[in-house]
């Protein structure tokens, strides 16, 4: 009995220490010295649950940083799920100036504040570096009557009520807007697009059983199904054709005469007013990460593209994208 009890207490302590470790670094910018170097463990927040895109990116980056000895300090990845990211952002925003906290982000960092679901947006944080790019794919059932995006969009122009698009995120967020952006460039009346959100991750099921017509998703989610011949990809949103088996067969929207792209960028941000020396340090380390062979293998494994931007380029890029999305949301009547 005693042994069981001690065992239980031990596990509890383990869980507690795991939960607390890396939680409470106080904000302390090391000033004065020319070259800043981390002297304490670094915490990367993935503002979502385990297993998603943000979580994977953060964990893979941490893994390469450590295994390739790019950064000597310990790096811990912490999941802070909630509000599509808002909970994690609020947490990092509270670590003002700390050079030991950062989080991984992607376009929802622009969408969610614009939808009025987060009081913090990219302007509040310090962009450190962008690392990878992913793209959207629009898939239909293998036996669907459309063979390219133009055929689909022509039908949408004729009778928008006959076609339903499914995605995982809610209207006004990624899966919806990536489709809207391309459809708008093709001349579709985007206010009439029928979009349903399926948050149980069964959007693909709905496509396969014919409940919906188009699945707006990420490129890598479609590969297996295309190989198996159950769906076909009408278009992807990258500038040029992607590389890799199957991927290289996906036509881009651009080559189909639709002048629009959508990048699912992913990079890292620090808290507000992160020390410039620290930003410079991390910029360089992320560049090293991005150039490493180990990370190239990981990109290949997950079907990501290389897309490095330093802090300044990143800031500009984000400001530009936010403007584009804002005008799209206004047109859809979804903007705040």
């Amino acid at each position, binding site marked *: 009995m005693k042994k069981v009890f001690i065992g239980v207490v031990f596990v*509890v302590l383990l869980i507690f220490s795991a939960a607390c470790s890396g939680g409470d670094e106080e904000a302390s910018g090391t000033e004065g010295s020319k070259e800043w170097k981390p002297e304490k463990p670094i915490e990367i927040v993935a503002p979502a*649950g385990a297993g998603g895109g943000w979580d994977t990116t953060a964990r893979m980056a941490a893994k390469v940083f450590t295994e390739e000895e790019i950064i000597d300090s310990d790096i811990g990845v912490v999941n802070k799920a909630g509000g*599509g990211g808002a909970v994690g952002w609020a947490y990092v925003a509270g670590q003002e100036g700390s050079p030991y906290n950062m989080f991984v982000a992607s376009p929802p960092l622009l969408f969610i504040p614009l939808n009025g679901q987060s009081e913090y947006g990219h302007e509040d944080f310090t962009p450190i570096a962008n690392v990878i790019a992913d793209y959207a794919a629009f898939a239909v059932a293998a036996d669907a009557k459309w063979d390219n995006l133009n055929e689909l969009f022509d039908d949408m122009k004729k009778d928008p*009520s006959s076609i*339903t698009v499914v995605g995982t995120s809610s209207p006004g967020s990624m899966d919806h807007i990536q489709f809207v952006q391309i459809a708008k460039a093709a001349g579709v009346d985007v206010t009439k697009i029928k979009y*349903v959100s399926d948050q149980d991750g069964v959007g693909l099921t709905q496509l396969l059983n014919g409940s919906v017509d188009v699945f707006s998703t990420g490129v890598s989610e479609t590969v297996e199904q295309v190989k198996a011949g159950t769906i076909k990809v009408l278009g992807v949103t990258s500038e040029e054709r992607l590389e890799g088996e199957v991927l290289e067969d996906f036509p881009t929207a651009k080559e189909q005469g639709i002048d629009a792209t959508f990048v699912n960028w992913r990079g890292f941000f620090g808290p507000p007013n992160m020390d410039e020396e620290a930003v410079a340090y991390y910029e360089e380390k992320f560049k090293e990460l991005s150039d490493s062979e180990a990370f190239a293998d990981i990109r290949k494994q997950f079907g990501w593209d290389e897309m490095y931007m330093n802090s300044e380029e990143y800031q500009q890029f984000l400001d530009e994208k936010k403007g584009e999305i804002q005008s799209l949301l206004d047109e859809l009547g979804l903007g705040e």
Partner: protein
Amino acid sequence: MGSLEGIIAGFQVAFSLEGLLFVMIGVFVGTFIGMMPGLGPISAIAVMIPITFGMDPAPALVMMAGVYYGAIFGGSTSSILLNAPGVSGAVATAFDGYPMAQQGKAGKALAIAAISSFIGGTVSVILLMLLAPMLSSVAISFGPPAYFALMLMGLTAISSLSEGSTIKALISAVAGFMIVTIGIDAQTGTQRFTFGNVNLLEGIDFLVIALGLFALAEVCTLIIKRKDLSQENAHKLGSMRLSKQDFKDMSGPVTRHSFLGFILGVLPGAGATIASFISYITEKKLSKNPEEFGKGSVKGLAAPETANNAATSGAFVPLLSLGIPGSGTTAVMLGAFLVLGVQPGPLLMTDRPEIFWGIIASMYIGNVFLLILNLPLIPYFAKILKIPRPLLISLVIMFSIIGVYAISFNTFDLYMLLLFGVVGFVMRLFSFPAPPFILAFILGGMMEQAFRQSLTISNGSLTVFVQDPIALTLLIVALLSFVFPLIRVIRSRRA
């Protein structure tokens, strides 16, 4: 076709020394984590992912699968002993399991749970092996209208989950429906009832409500009724030997729900929780003595325990054969596959037969291990009840808090837990039953989304629900199960 060779390769993986070892580690870790109130398969799998880095994918995945069904298997223990379900699939287990333990039959309750779980798990693995390739078409046959009808069918059970006042059960269910609307609405992206609080944007987690309404409310009751003599029995472990009558009582539900649970598990989004509730309700409807349910019925315990384990194997059908994760847990499993460089999907069976069949084959062994591991340990688990009451109460509170904190690492959830503990206690004081609240909370969210998806797709026409044959059939069943009890009541009044 090479499917037979694949099966053989799978068994070779599973029965290799390495395979056996990792299955054992997996089920052991799974049972242990699942047993702790508040910690379920999601945390168990997430904890194991970093450990599998660099491992050979087949044994690694065999281990992860073991963690998953091990956690569901172990989840029943805290439900039965402490009324503190650690896994959503084990909530229905507490309905009859906890009363049974209260009557001094904790050993028996744990034995029934272990045996039902074992049979449910094993039968469903056989079904998985025989039918996996075919069932993938069943998994995708459910469109939004069919999901709506399935959830509606589940809801007709609200009245049967109540003891006493049906009105009170309905009020309780309405409260559950209201609570589930909190958060960002998926179909419009609008916030509902969040009062501008970021912590409410994703709604309230199921576990917060389950632990509040069941575990904390129970703790409050224990503190208040300290001198109640009937509680004395709860210290007794009782014999874990099952009588012939017990086996007879179990045989029906165990057979039925091995199949029913499996089928419901196959449907993406339904899973172990819904399977356990629907089985419990079905069993109660079929029973000649429905009044025994909720008071420690053998059938009422065996049914959900069989179903939740059967559903776990079922959930592997869409995951392995389509690459579609049907639940939060299988989504994390999918992540584990990807980390190891294995892409589940229609091609897995032909490209990597040793992994596809290896996982399935290992489940046979896993289930045997679970039974061997659990049966001899029952007396030790049950001794938890001998811990002095004040200490036990503190432990339950502590585990509930850890479990909730582990979901989000957010203290806000702890206040919500406390709030629902108070709500649960007040509900008990005025005898509003908690199960309908939980049921409405689980089914309500999916039901609403499926209803609105259906209407968007049909451009607002309600005929979509009768045009789909699966939806129509389920709606008819729902209608019948609603009308029959009424007819029975009317007849008995006439007589």
